[in-house]
């Protein structure tokens, strides 16, 4: 642990955080890390469901050995400020996969913050985040990617899509790429939009009730974030948690 001081709004990776909620969280949870070292060739598979009613901060610092993989999937559907922060340091032929769903209404901030450090050549990372919000909720995805000067042949991808169901909801996407190597692929995309009204009408015209149509469209929208999760039962469990948030809203 290098720092014990509480973050402020001037800290880039905390700029969209809910500081009032942060004050209620023990300092050790805000500033501390769960540190995990993944041995060469090993796979770390983790899923997170954040759905508590109290502010929740989880911070994971992962170091991947050569050829190791980290496969992290998360649903953040909490009803209070909730943040999952992941820092990953990659070595040659290692891979970091992250799929995240931010979903919910209320006056709640939910966020994913990742820092992907391509410290060595020939590592890959892929991050897919989908956010669905209503009420006055906001969903944030801050994704920083650092590519070191000698980390050639890095392949890093980051994709964010936000869907806002009501006026007043918001989504913040902050891709931040610092690339010092010259032979790398770094793709990133971020879009925010509304539900496709024509698709909704088309479904209604065939008899699908509006709430069911919305459910199907939102599930389809979220699918990309969980598509890379190979364990189908676990994938279904995460979908259920995400879609249960919608039912609470109805």
């Amino acid at each position: 642990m290098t720092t014990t001081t509480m973050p402020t709004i001037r800290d880039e990776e905390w700029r969209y955080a809910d500081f009032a909620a942060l004050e209620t969280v023990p300092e050790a949870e805000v500033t501390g890390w769960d540190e995990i070292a993944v041995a060469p060739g090993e796979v770390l598979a983790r899923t997170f469901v954040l759905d508590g009613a109290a502010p929740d901060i989880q911070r994971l610092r992962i170091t991947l050995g050569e050829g190791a993989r980290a496969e992290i999937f998360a649903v953040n559907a909490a009803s209070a400020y909730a943040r999952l922060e992941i820092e990953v340091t990659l070595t040659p032929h290692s891979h970091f996969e992250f799929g995240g769903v931010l979903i919910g209404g209320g006056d709640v901030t939910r966020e994913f913050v990742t820092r992907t450090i391509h410290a060595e050549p020939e590592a890959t990372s892929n991050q897919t985040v989908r956010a669905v919000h209503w009420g006055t909720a906001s969903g944030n995805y801050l994704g920083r990617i650092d590519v070191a000067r000698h980390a050639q042949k890095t392949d890093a991808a980051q994709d964010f899509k936000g869907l806002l169901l009501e006026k007043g909801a918001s989504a913040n996407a902050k891709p931040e790429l610092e690339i010092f190597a010259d032979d790398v692929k770094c793709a990133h995309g971020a879009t925010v939009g509304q539900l496709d009204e024509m698709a909704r009408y088309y479904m209604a015209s065939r008899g699908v009730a509006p709430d069911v149509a919305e459910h199907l469209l939102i599930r389809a929208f979220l699918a990309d974030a969980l598509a890379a999760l190979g364990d189908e039962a676990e994938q279904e469990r995460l979908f259920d948690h995400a879609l249960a948030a919608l039912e609470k809203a109805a």
Partner: protein
Amino acid sequence: MLKIDNLHAEIGGKEILKGLSLELNAGEVHAIMGPNGAGKSTLSYVLGGRPGYEVTAGSVTYNGEDLLAMDPHERAAAGFFLGFQYPVEIPGVSNVQFLREALNSQRRVRGEEPLSGGEFLKLAKEKAALLKLDMEMLKRFVNVGFSGGEKKRNEMVQMGILDPKLAVLDETDSGLDIDALKVVGEGINAIMRQPDKAVLLITHYQRLLDYVKPDFVHILAGGRIVKSGGADLAHRLEEEGYDEVMAA
């Protein structure tokens, strides 16, 4: 079955339908033809309840009920089907999933038991075969990556599965090659040519009417029906053009 009386409708404050009246009885096929901008698609969307199309006067009665008071999904459950001129793509939702949800939603409203996965697939296969659409396509996302002709055939497969009482088909023939036109025409006959059903075909061209013989043909121009007749009216239009026939 369907009675449209003095219908006025507008989009974005612009009046498109200006006193349209039309009556369809069970067992009949009607065709509406008309020049571009006459209000053909507006009529289909007003009947289908598309948001943004505002009815300012007149009425539409469907089997004695006020069609305009129903939400789009309620119209579907009551046996109304709209074949879209531009079928909508829905990435992430498969045709099979979508149509099974649609059919079972309709059945629930009508107090019928939902179909199981197996029963539904059997029905879907039968209708896909009727329209010569590869069953594999129904497992793909709704209309995503479909050619224009495949989208139109998919509309007809949907109609076959949902088995409506009244179908309004908006330019179902556009985008079809000659072979597909025949398949679609025969599909419409097989699904809808029944004594308890009716069809309203909206088209630019006579060619679909070679396969689906209309009992009545109407010319829509300037937001209202300006001329009605039998199947021969469509032939005259094809030969003489709208201006000539309407002036006669």
